[in-house]
């Protein structure tokens, strides 16, 4: 066990998988010599060399397109897109090929690649560096969309993503990269994709969140308990898609109330699917409308205004209170 930041934990995941499995290669812009602009691939090139830790030309479609070829051949490419805000350059390759080659070849080929990208706001970044658009990938058949919420699950999920036989988009909450440390076991640890976790048990309301929002939600849940005597159950999705909704349904059946939190724009965002699943599976248990605490349907603001854009503990607490009053 070592206390690690999420950056270190992700680095460990790649390092250990590369040691174990020579099919695993890392590619992206500045992932080699520089170790990634956030240092997530730090020093991998020293251990594994230029052939396995590949500094690519500046072309995202090129990165994913070549990774698809490598994956088809039998490698396990882990691609870094420098910021999720630039992942739209890969959209056609992902949608048309990574997610479909298994189907198109009727099972002859599959595309076990991982697209890692830091996502989300709260770090006073430039334009395009704070977006949260996991819904695009979640709505795309044939790809899994994973978002960890802490160093330990980040490491375990990334290992699972690398081993997964199908493409995985892995968004890393950059606000949590160095926000806190957690014990991470030295020995191998995985977490199954497609399985949410109960981050906190409670009976009064269910809060569903993921990624960087988890820290705020946990803060809000503490305060709700301490100051207002409200016991919130918190579910951390971990895998956004394919969305496993039984745990949510069970929780809502118990609490009768739910609040969904994400930083992505509200409309047509991930929260909408969660609301719909709740309606489909636990409508008759619901005592109040499900609330969505989210980013707004606008361009993500620059740093002077971003704190007003982002959900925060206060907004979450107020939403829970309203839901309980309703």
């Amino acid at each position, binding site marked *: 066990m070592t206390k690690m930041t999420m950056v270190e934990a992700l680095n460990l995941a790649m390092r250990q998988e590369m040691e174990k499995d020579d099919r695993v290669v890392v590619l992206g812009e500045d992932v080699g010599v520089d170790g990634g602009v956030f240092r997530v691939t730090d020093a991998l090139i020293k251990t594994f060399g230029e052939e396995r830790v590949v500094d690519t030309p500046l072309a995202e479609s090129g990165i994913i*397109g*070549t990774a698809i*070829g*490598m994956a088809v051949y039998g*490698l396990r490419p882990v691609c870094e897109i420098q910021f999720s805000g630039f992942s739209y350059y890969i959209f056609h390759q992902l949608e048309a090929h990574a997610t479909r080659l*298994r189907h*198109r*070849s*009727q*099972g002859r080929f599959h595309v076990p690649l991982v697209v890692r990208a830091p996502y989300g706001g709260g770090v006073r970044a430039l334009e395009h560096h704070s977006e949260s658009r996991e819904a695009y990938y979640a709505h795309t058949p044939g790809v899994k969309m994973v978002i960890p919420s802490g160093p330990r699950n980040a490491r375990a999920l990334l290992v699972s993503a690398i081993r997964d036989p199908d493409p995985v988009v892995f968004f890393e909450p950059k606000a949590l990269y160095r926000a806190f440390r957690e014990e991470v076991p030295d020995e191998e640890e995985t977490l199954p994709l497609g399985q949410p976790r109960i981050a906190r048990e409670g009976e009064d309301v269910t809060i569903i969140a993921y990624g960087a929002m988890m820290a705020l939600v946990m803060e809000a849940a503490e305060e709700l308990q301490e100051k207002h005597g409200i016991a919130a159950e918190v579910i951390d999705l971990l895998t956004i898609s394919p969305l496993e909704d039984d745990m949510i349904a069970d929780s809502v059946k118990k609490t009768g109330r739910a609040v969904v939190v994400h930083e992505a724009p509200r409309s047509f965002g991930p929260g909408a699917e969660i609301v719909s699943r709740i309606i489909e599976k636990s409508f008759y248990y619901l005592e109040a409308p499900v609330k969505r605490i989210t980013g707004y349907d606008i361009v993500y603001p620059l740093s002077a205004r971003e704190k007003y854009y982002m959900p925060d503990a206060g907004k979450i607490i107020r939403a829970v209170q309203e839901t309980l009053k309703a």
Partner: protein
Amino acid sequence: MPRSEIELPYRVEYLSILDEKGHVDTALEPDIPDVLLLKLHKEMLAGRRFDERMLNLQRQERIGTFPPIKGQEASQLGAVANLKASDWMVPAFREALAEFWRGKPKENFILFYGGYEEGGAVEEGRNDLPVSIPVGSQMLHAVGIGMAIKYRRQPDVVMTFFGDGATSEGDFHEALNFAGVFQSPVVFICQNNQWAISVPRSKQTHAKTIAQKALAHGLPGIQVDGNDILAVYAATREAVERARSGGGPTLIESFTYRLSLHTTADDPKKYRSEEEVKEWAKKDPIPRFQTYLKNKGLLSDEEIGQLETEIAEEVQGVVDRAEKRMQEEVDPLGMFDHTFAELPPSLIQQRQEMEHELSLMQEEASHD
């Protein structure tokens, strides 16, 4: 402190060996074994006849829309004939003949364009990617496969096909650029058939040739007469050998012509003249290759006649087998296969929903 020319390592060449009339430039003539020459001829002819028959089937609505290859037989076979079975091939959507050469069963073509995913299956052992419809996107996969081959220290090469239109897509350049930087063992074959649906080559790019696009990425590029199977073969052989021996990628512009429709949904009369098509029909790759073979004493008119009969029978057999398979009940639930290695719970649920729907539909049908 000059204004001086920068010397570039590559110049763009044009290669032609066997002309429209069947005359051959013996100095450049590649050394192809007779059996291979005859096999190439048979497959060219078979490809032409199959294509004609497919047009027929489509017109009778027995299959859906498909892209004919008429006129591009030499351009495909001359290239792909240089590959070994362990090499890889990454086609676009107008390389049916190259796929057949590599071992794809012709039935699968009919199944695929008949609307059955099963026709897209790639048999174990055939190292080809399936048809790729999004224009320009597949060449990057070839480059990645080449990078993996290099990583695995294998002696294989990758050949990828695409059209003149595809060279306008950014992904084409990203592919050439990655191939250059990583010296990926790829042979890029642009089948410049002069048209991208209704857009002529001249409106596709201001460049004089497609071949010169290689220069942007520091690669050798060559233009060949794509209706001259000897030239295509010779240029590709050079490129394949270069790639195999670690010399990196090459761009080959195969200058050819789509004698038929873009797809069966297309009406070329809207955008090109009959004269142009007639002029190009004179450059048909098949008659000139037949003249060459006859002049070499390898082929007679009689043998051609026999071949035609043989091919007609083969094609009929293929059509029969394919239609039989298409008449068999399709399992609708098959659409859930191959989404993921394992169906996740939400898809299991959707599949069950569909099963339920199907049973209701059956019930309703039985009520009618």
